[in-house]
């Protein structure tokens, strides 16, 4: 950009609002609720005019003023009835990639998660920045390797509904986690995140639930909407309890629906355990996937008396019955 001439000009804020703004990545962040509303005020207090509003004038049949950076300040100016703002005008012939670099420079502090990086890469692609330039210039600027496969992954993430991207951003999900969510169909993601708003979801829990629900939908030939309208699901999601409790109940329900045979067997085995083996000086565990025919019996002793007690309990008829009954399921 060296050698290009910049100049300052008073711009009418209403003119800016009347024009479609292609560089409005900042407004996308606003839509996601990611604007720090106190920022313009604090910024003016702290830095005055050090950070100028950037615009580009383009002439295509008629003159258009494109806002490059300063969306918050312009909104603030308009809200405080300031009709004109001094702007730094960048030349029309400045290459698109350079304008985007200015947008990124301004927004970089906020683009701090894989979800927002994905959104920014999509923003570049929508502006028709050449893929080559995105790879070799912008991905390194975002701290990413310039690999086509990585770009494809980020673009897959960016195709998720905005609510999901926001969730990923707020939970600071890694790229891999985001990608795991992006694997699901848009319809399922949208319905899932809108219907589970009242649940306390960790990254791994969201993934587990989505994977299992996806399988249930496929198996039963249901749509996400039909599934979330079923009585069992509604009963859990509509209950008036703590977000963590609700998440736990929902998880249990989904597990039961995904693994109907396994949960029935588990229920029987747990009953046997409770009836014949619980509260002893030893613990009995088994492979919950039922793959290994093996029971693990653990104990801890301090002295020989305790050892004798454990042996006594182990040899009880009730214990043998319990062990035999559990083994019959394995």
């Amino acid at each position, binding site marked *: 950009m060296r050698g290009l001439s910049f100049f300052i000009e008073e711009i009418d804020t209403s003119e800016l609002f009347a024009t479609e703004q292609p560089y409005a990545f900042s407004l996308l962040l606003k839509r996601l609720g990611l604007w720090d509303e106190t920022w313009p005020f604090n910024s003016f207090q702290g830095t005055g005019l050090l950070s100028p509003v950037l615009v580009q004038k383009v002439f295509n049949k008629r003159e258009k003023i494109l806002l490059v950076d300063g969306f918050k300040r312009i909104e603030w100016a308009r809200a405080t009835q300031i009709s004109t703002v001094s702007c730094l005008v960048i030349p029309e012939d400045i290459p698109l990639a350079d304008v985007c670099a200015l947008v990124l420079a301004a927004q970089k502090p906020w683009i701090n998660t894989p979800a927002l990086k994905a959104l920014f890469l999509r923003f570049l692609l929508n502006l028709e920045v050449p893929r080559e330039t995105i790879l070799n210039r912008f991905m390194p600027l975002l701290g990413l390797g310039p690999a086509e496969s990585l770009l494809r992954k980020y673009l897959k993430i960016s195709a998720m509904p905005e609510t999901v991207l926001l969730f990923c951003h707020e939970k600071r999900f890694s790229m891999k986690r985001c990608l795991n969510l992006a*694997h699901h169909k848009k319809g399922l993601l949208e319905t899932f995140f809108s219907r589970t708003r009242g649940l306390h979801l960790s990254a791994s829990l969201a993934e587990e639930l989505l994977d299992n629900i*996806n*399988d*249930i*939908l*496929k*198996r039963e030939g249901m749509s996400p909407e039909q599934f979330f309208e079923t009585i069992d699901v509604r009963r859990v999601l509509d209950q008036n309890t703590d977000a963590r409790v609700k998440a736990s109940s929902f998880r249990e329900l989904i597990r039961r629906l*995904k*693994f*109907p*045979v*396994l949960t029935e*067997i588990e229920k029987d085995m747990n009953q046997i355990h409770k009836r014949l083996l619980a509260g002893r000086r030893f613990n009995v565990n088994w492979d919950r*996937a*039922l*793959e*290994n*025919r093996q029971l693990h019996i653990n104990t801890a002793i301090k002295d020989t008396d305790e050892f004798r007690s454990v042996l006594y309990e182990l040899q009880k008829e009730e214990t043998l019955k319990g062990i035999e009954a559990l083994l019959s399921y*394995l």
Partner: protein
Amino acid sequence: MKRLKSVTVHPAVRASRLGKIFDDQAIPGDSPRIPDYREGKRHLYIGPKKGKMFHVCASLDTRYICCSTHVISHISNCPFECTYCFLQNYLTDTTLSLVADTGAILDEIREKTVLQPWRLFRIGTWELGDSIAIPPLNQAAAELVEGFSGMPNCILKLRTKSAEVEPLLDIDHGRKTVVSWTINPRQVITREEIGTAGLDARLDAMARVSSAGYPIGLHFDPMILFPGWEKAYRQTVQEIFDAVSPEEVIWISIGSLRFNPEMKKKIENNYPASTITAQEMVLGDDNKFRYLRPIRVDMYRHLLDLLDEHGAGHCFTYLCMERWNVWHEVFGRYPMSIGHLDFLMAQSVYNRFPEICACKPDRQKYLALEY
């Protein structure tokens, strides 16, 4: 050639029998190294043998009772598109590849198998692809068949979902090759085994191969769960034994659908309409999802009953990649080890097909094998 978009032949094998098949249609050169799994299926590369090709099946896992078959990895990728195929998550160079140095492959096998003359080696060619799916894979198979006819302690195992058996019919096989089919009901073939021969075509090819004197292998693997599976497998077994006699069936393997978590995502991405990944499956110690054990046992028992009903109860039947407890539930007994299963298979061949296995298997030697 109709399935293929291009054929590349390495100059080193251009003069070989397989290298000459496509003659002027072939591009001379090295593998085009197609990265896309589906696209790779449409490009054939015929090349020279590089490194060792004969080894024990890569699925062998000592936590499971495996059949310890050996394999020759001279084919890579497959023109068919089974939704459950592990290759979609395995190959880096996905070009459909074939090694043309059949002589060198046979030499490597001879060198190794001669060291254990007492042992019956079952050697498959299906590890990374279908043994005879299309020409020239079936022509390569025919070269191997002829080579194996003179090997005293080896059986070649061809395994396919095709009906491309023509090159095998009029050659000297000496009964040392078992031609096997992966078998599933029509519903599964249509939905999940895309591009493969239909059940009728497979059974017709099976009957022709059997008439040509080859022993037949049956692989009900992967068995797939779907509404009406019991009836569908019943119908399939009925049709098989209408086509071939159980007396000609040397062995039958049974296994169920299995895949690792990464593969699950691949299947869902590549075949969104397939529902095979959505069933009640659990992750085993080998990081593979399988149907829940009681469900698998039901499936295996059902199939075993059907085999009994059709007079195939005496054919050697084994489970693929299952633990001793599943064997026990299905058969009421289980092999003590992988070596023991190897012995039992050799013994069954010796008893039922003595012309194939000249040497009486020595149990102790098999039990002493290390894996």
